[in-house]
């Protein structure tokens, strides 16, 4: 599903040149659950952004669903992205002005799904993450765990092949964090590929494979048996 070859990302400011990713080669197969770990500033989020087609690499190749996308324009990336990728962020990134229902509905609107279909699909996915009783609430009226469940619902609603999670439990207490991880695990069980960036070993335990990054390079890849 995902294959990168010597992926490199360099950030330049006026005076400093920072290499965030240095020749990262990585493969993720369909149906896998991969955790990316490493200390702060090692390039985890940069990698995730490139994998999520939010950003282009400076050098190297990136194959997403067999397409070589490293020099795709923002428009082309956006098209691929909205059909295939769901995102879950550490800080949830819900839109405060929209209700739970409207937040989850958003990806479907951008996909051009008609309103009756949207309604049933949103209801369905809200049911799945057990938050449908709060669908008329606004994000600020919910607890962190509830907000993240909404974010997961939003990532799921378009039925993506790949879910990218950036420290999904980072802002949650342990019981809420576990709830979210169980949800992701379940999702993976139904065939969705998941790539997750995390600091937490406990969360990483849910993945089948852990990739460790250090200073923009892959240092180890351990394959674990499914939990």
């Amino acid at each position: 599903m995902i294959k990168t070859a010597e992926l490199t990302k360099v950030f330049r400011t006026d005076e400093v040149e920072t290499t965030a990713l240095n020749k990262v080669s990585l493969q993720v197969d369909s149906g896998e659950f991969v955790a990316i770990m490493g200390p702060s500033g090692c390039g985890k989020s940069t990698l995730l952004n490139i994998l999520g087609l939010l950003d282009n690499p400076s050098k190297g190749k990136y194959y997403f669903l067999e397409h070589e996308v490293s020099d795709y324009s923002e428009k082309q990336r956006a098209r691929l992205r909205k059909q295939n990728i769901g995102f879950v962020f550490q800080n949830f990134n819900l839109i405060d002005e929209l209700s739970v229902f409207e937040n989850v509905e958003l990806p479907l609107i951008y996909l051009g799904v008609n309103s009756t279909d949207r309604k049933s699909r949103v209801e369905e996915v809200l049911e799945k993450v057990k938050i449908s009783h709060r669908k008329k609430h606004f994000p600020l009226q919910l607890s962190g765990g509830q907000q993240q469940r909404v974010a997961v619902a939003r990532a799921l609603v378009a039925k993506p092949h790949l879910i990218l999670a950036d420290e999904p439990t980072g802002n949650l207490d342990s019981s809420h964090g576990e709830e979210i991880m169980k949800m992701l695990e379940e999702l993976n069980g139904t065939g969705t590929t998941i790539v997750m960036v995390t600091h937490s070993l406990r969360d990483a335990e849910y993945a089948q494979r852990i990739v460790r990054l250090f200073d923009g390079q892959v240092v180890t890849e351990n394959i674990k048996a499914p939990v």
Partner: protein
Amino acid sequence: MFWNYLKIAFRNLVRQKSYSLINIFGLTIGIAAFLMIMLYVQHELSYNSHIPNKDRLYRCVELQFPDGIDDQHVAVTMVPLGETLMENFPEITNFVRLWNLGEIPIGTRDGTILNQNFVSFTDTTVFELFGVELIRGDEETALVEPRSIIFSEKTAKKFFGSVDSAMNQIVTLFGFEGFKVTGVMENPPVNTHYRYEVLISMSTAYDMFDWFGGWESNMLDTYVQLSENADHRELSKKFKPFLLEYREISEEEQESFFDLYLQPVDVIHLKSGHIKFQVMNYRQGSAQSVLIFIIIAVLIVVIACVNYINIAIARSMKQAREVGMRKVLGASRSSLMYRFFGESFLLTVISIAFSLLLVEIFLPYFNDILRVDLQMDLAGNWMLNIGLLALLVLISLISGAYPAFYLSRFRPIKVLKGSLSDNDMKSGWLSKGLVVFQFVVSIALIFSIMALYKQINFLMNKDLGYNPDNVYAVSLHNNNDPDDLRQLKEKLLQKPKITGVAAASYYNGVAGNQSTIQVIDSAETSIMMRFGYVDYDFLDMMGMQIVEGRNFDESYAMDSLEAVIVNRAAVETLGWENPLEQSFTPFYDTLHNRKVIGVVEDYHYYSLHSKIEPAVYIIYPEEFRQMMVRVNGEMNNEASEYIEESWKEIFPGRPFEMHVVENLIQNSYRGEQRMMELFGYFAIISLIISSLGLYGLTTFIIQQKRKEIGIRKVLGSSSVQVILMLMIRFLKLVFIAGLIALPLAWYFMDDILAGFAYRAGISWYIFVIAMLVSLVIATITILYHATRAANSNPVDAISYE
């Protein structure tokens, strides 16, 4: 401490350059517009302020109940009125009369004759009552003897080169000889309703004209001075009963006899809109437009303040953290308030300084539009200084109040934890409301200029019922000897370029005078009519249509003595079925009955402000004041030189003066044109300020929305979708503003346009265009930021908050 706050405020201004620029720029043009308007308002309110004891001086006004037309207020009175009132009412301590001759030729001993405007006969009391000051001559004697004349300083220099050489000179007036210059007076102030450049002793009029002095006709201004505690309203009530008895008015005429009342001189300039005839009200103003000007001035400044407040609100999220930090470090609420007020104070000082510069630059243009000579006299105009001080305090307070009171109240812990959200601040509604307010003003102004423009355009292009195109009016003054006129006419018509020549009392056919005529019928109907003095060719040459009967004709020997033509309005007012069988007796010539020989179609002899009233036309060369010349196509140099040469040949030494008739017609709409032009500028100013505010606001709001935009893009929104979303959010506000502004402006303009007897009406497209213009301008303003935000990389916005 104060300096410390100013220093911090100054640093803040420098640090936030673009924000400071928007604020200073907006405030500067706002204040400059305000100052210029207020200088004008001050000027308008200052009329007649030079008159000593002006609170005791009143103008006599008649309320007449004429037959055939509406009641009318007339500030023209009879010659003996002033004296009679003073003799019979102890409250009246003095009076003065002014009889305006308008523009007349004055000749000096060396043979030069120049036209001079603002010439009046007057009583010696003019010195005391109007505060006329002599710089040469003696007030006691200067206007006593017949044929005594005094000149203003300016006019004395015009005729005699200097003030001193003017004294005791002998001049001719209208060709009458032996007028002696007995004094030179100071130039009259600009802000006087009665403008005088040359004054002639009233005794001259008694001396020269046998008919002068009776109660027959209204011809001059009468002003009376009341004793200190007299009530002019109470006094006015006594006039009619007194006059009825004094003049022995018969019982049946008593009811229609006019009412006389007193109008305070200090309201003559602004509150004479209801008066139909006045001897003079130089540059008459209106209280309504002064009020409108004040409202606009205040609105423009408020709009500029709103920018400040709005940007302050938008910034407050950022500033809140700083405020919280300062509080943690021990700042008291009051010290924080000082800080914010210090900032707005500094900003206002800078803006006022710049605006003074702007006023200095633009005042000449403003003067040009309004035809005034306003000066920004910082040293001499104490009202201006007080005004500036008040502006400084008010703007600083209004602008600084929001940040000062609101931000300083924040609880430090809440702010620092970042748990302060947009909703928490409840500022969304306020700043949206303020933007809406700004656009309400702008849209209303755009609407108003368009409605005015349509009206003026309508008036300028409306068929007047005659054809003034390419017609030129040569002023005759007193040169109306029939033989001379005939010669001039023949001479002019020799030129092929000239296609028609005709003389009349005025280019429109009617003179200013109005009088009652008596119809010779069983009921002895009398009716108030306008009088038009025309020659045989006038009606035809000017393209007026005879709809019944015939035009004047030289082959009918008695036409000049016994024939009249009336307009259709007269026929309708009198209810005549067969106008050609009617005849009546005019006031000036009771020997000859006049027979109606024709009916002329109604045409607009006056401006379209007023309705067409009954008019009567007669052949009467003594009253001819203008010779109308129609040329074929555009006037060229050759033709105009030919006209001037012909004039000089027949009237040697007499000043030549020619006007374009179309300009004379358009002069009637100058007031509206000026108002439209000014409204235009005000609308532009308010749009600029509002757009600046909107620009500033979008900068901040889009910054706050970066996260949302980022999320939407991650979820698959395209740039265009983001731009549209942002545009709709802002344009919605402009649209709401339109919904509020348009009905308001419509109501207001409907009221203004009600002053016209003929109205263009307000069309639907004015609503649409006013709305579209503001939407387009708002779109342009927002587009830059919206596009930039939409094209930014979403990654920057979302992950690293």
